């Protein structure tokens, strides 16, 4: 039974919450280390899979020790809080407007000094639409680099699961691409529409069918998603020597 004092304090707290919005992040999960910050850009379609967050965050919490937020934060490249986001997410189907020089400078600094961006072309059309625009921006951000296939021994394929192919709603590339600076890959890119495979409606039904691999392909998409998130928080931890014999043994099983 609730006491009068407790009731009053709850009421006052609620009123104070209305008057003074508290922390920027909603506290759905206790003390989250992880949440998606999705980039809204100009032109194209920045939000092809609006329902993708809940299922992957749920799986993340079920399978790993990471506490995540089941709500995404929407942001822009010019957002001053950009540098405090652990995981930038950017997706789309169509070509989008170029970033301004100022936006590019912010994004370049964010990515060069430790930020992380996972981007995906949900259309999966190489050289067209989102893929063309994203490659254009990467070229502007890192003129000396280009998106390259991440090698099979990259930490992202072994950060939690041992992954040898990448699933998704579609299967354009069985691998991930990325930009690597020293030992850190701040940009990871997929054309398989991982978020399409993660997306689930409010009744718990998958929104999209995974083709051609069906549910096995969806499962692979979740594994890839978890690996990308774990990689964003641990970097090349799995490259430490202590992991080598274990990983090698399991790969040979």
């Amino acid at each position, binding site marked *: 039974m609730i006491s009068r004092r407790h009731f009053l304090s709850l009421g006052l707290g609620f009123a104070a919450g209305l008057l003074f919005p*508290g*922390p920027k992040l909603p*506290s759905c999960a*206790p*003390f989250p*280390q992880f949440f998606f910050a999705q980039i809204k850009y100009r032109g194209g379609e920045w939000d092809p899979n609006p329902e993708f967050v809940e299922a992957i965050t749920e799986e993340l919490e*079920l*399978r*790993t*020790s*990471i*506490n995540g937020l089941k709500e995404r934060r929407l942001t822009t490249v010019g957002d*001053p809080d*950009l*540098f*405090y986001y*652990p995981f930038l997410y950017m997706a789309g189907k169509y070509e989008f407007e170029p970033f301004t020089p100022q936006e590019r400078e912010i994004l370049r*600094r*964010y990515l060069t*000094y*430790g*930020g992380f961006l996972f981007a995906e072309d949900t259309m999966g059309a190489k050289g067209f639409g989102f893929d063309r625009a994203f490659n254009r921006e990467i070229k502007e951000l890192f003129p000396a680099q280009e998106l390259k296939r991440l090698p099979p021994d990259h930490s992202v394929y*072994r*950060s*939690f*699961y*041992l992954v040898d192919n990448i699933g998704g709603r579609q299967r354009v590339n069985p691998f991930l691409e990325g930009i690597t600076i020293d*030992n*850190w890959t701040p940009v990871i890119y997929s054309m398989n529409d991982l978020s399409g495979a993660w997306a689930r409606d409010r009744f718990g039904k998958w929104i999209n069918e995974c083709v051609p691999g069906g549910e096995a392909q969806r499962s692979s998409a979740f*594994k890839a998603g978890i690996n990308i998130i*774990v990689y*964003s*928080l*641990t*970097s090349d*931890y*799995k490259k*430490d020597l*202590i*992991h080598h014999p*274990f*990983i090698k043994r*399991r*790969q040979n*099983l």
Partner: protein
Amino acid sequence: MSLNQVTIAPIFPLWLIILLLVLGSAAAIFQYRLIRKRLGRNKALGLSLLRLAAISLLISFALNPSRAERREHEVSQAVAILVDTSQSMGLLGHPGSGSRLDEAKSLLNGGPSPLLKSLAERFELRLYGLGETLRPIKAGDVTRLKAEGKKGDLTDALGKLTGKNSLAVLLSDGNLKWEGDNPTGIPVIAVPLGDSDGYKDLLLRTVKAPALAFRGREVTIDVTVRGYGYSGLTLPVILKDGERLLTAKNVRLSESPGEGTVSLSFIPEDVGQHNLSVAIPPQFGESLASNNSINLPLKVVRDKIRILMVSGSPSLNYRFLRTAFKNDPSIDLLSFVILRTPSNILNVPVQEQSLIPFPVETLFAKELKNFDLLIFDNFQPHPYLRANDPEKVKEFVREGGGFAMIGGPNFLGEGGYAGTSIEEILPTRWAGKGDYRRDSPLGVKLSRAGMAHPITHLSPDEGDNLSLWRNMPPLDGVNRLEPKSSGTVLLESTGEISRPILTVGSYGKGRVLVLATDYSWKWYMGMVAAGKGNWPYLRLAERMVRWLTKDPGLDPVQITLAERAGAVGQDAEFRIRVSDEGTISLAVFNPDGVKIGARLKPTGKPGEYLGSFLPEKGGTYRMKVETRTGYLEESMAIPGLMEDLDGAPNNERLKTISASTGGKILGRGDDLLKEIQAHAARAQNRFVEERRLPLWAKLYFLIPILGLLGLEWYLRRRWGLI
């Protein structure tokens, strides 16, 4: 005067003289023809010959004839006497004769007819003392000679002898330098001193040790022991660090003189300057005990700082700390991240996941001692640590390890450390239930202690440092803690109630640190966002590690010793660096613990001074430097004069010297005076003086010319030509 004593040195060219003679002869012939008709043939011929003779004599003076005179002189002979005065001459000589130097004095001045006196009567005597340098002495000074200083250099000394000496007499035990060159060619008569047969001594002949060693890596010191008169002896060679025994090994001397070699190994555990000593115990009858031990300064550094980090879950805090540690080549990081907890679902076969077991048994029971620093990053002990593991951590810190706890939801109370040995060693305590808060972001500010502490001293400029911390982004999550009395708060939260954010302390020999937030990574990205770069975070991480691992580079006072050990009687210098530019004082204590004079002068660089003192004897000197913020004691080993002395009489060297100079080594029964006389007689003691006297300057050479000319004049007058 004989003709072979006459030499000529023409004042004109020879052809000119011959030409003049020809002209003179032509003039005489011309005169003969002129007067032949008047005087007749004979008289004309007579006058002409007289004229020719006078002209020829005059012209012959142009040849500048001179007479050479040779005189042979005798010179008095000089003898140089060199008395060895190096330190080994102070050792015992033959039984009953005192020291070797006493033997030399007795030889020169002893007996009814002292040798010095006898020699002075026969020769020109030049006396020298041969220590580290050659110095002339008077006969009266011989009795006052003292054995001191290092061995002399005979080659150098012979080159410096003054005047012309017939021979040199060397009174020595043979412990001197000789390079085989004799620049003057003087024969050396060597008079050996000391009892080579009865000499007994043990010494450390060579000690090969590194000046720099790495902590945790084996150091080997090779020692060669030499013995005289101790054939068949087995004795221990002892290696100590200060008063602490490190190791000892036996060495056997199978013959006399003989040598034995032994290798002493140990693993240095503490970084810093160590004063090692190698010693062999003195034996009965030894001539010299001071060469039985030697001091060895050894600087121990760590090759890499080994960090074991355990993170409770993947997080940005882990990633940015990892980035900072991996960027530092002096850090060797082993990290474990709890990727899944027992409550997480494992939905794939084991071969499809990359997780490895957390080797808690190996880490905490066996390997922990091999690390310098242990970090728990938002790590909850349950269910990973076993009941006695917190005690192992406590022991690790007590023995000198560093320990850092980084906050988060799993920290302290909620993490289950309450009441464990880990909570006991921390400088903070849990403030109550629900210690982790993520309400409004909290800024941080430097405490008074934090302003001067090396961890938070990110910029050398005090104002810049304050501003840097003031502009750090606020933290989204902090643990509510209270400092213990043993803790020093360096950073505290802003707001009405200040909570410790960064607190340091110590336990046993180790150091501990609590960073009560899992959002310190915002100090990295926040500064990048502000365009100030990532260096403040990287520097903070580096300084936390170095402070926790007791890196001397972060101490408020640092003393750097010279690489070469000092020497008795020479200024010993060392460099001092202080972080606080205020008052600085230096005190130096000699091996007996007595304070001695020391000098301190600024080098011109900020916070850097040059300290020095004059060691009067060998041993370990202690230097203490004090500033307002701390003090440091360091010690310096000064080798003693006799520390490495091999004092055995070296007759072989004397034989070599005398043989290579054409001299002689004398036996005990030989008569030194006779030998000197015999050698002096062989030496060249005469010289020839040659003088040249020009003949034309002599009157008796003018007389024939005048006579000839006068006779010619007389005859001309008589025969009516004048």
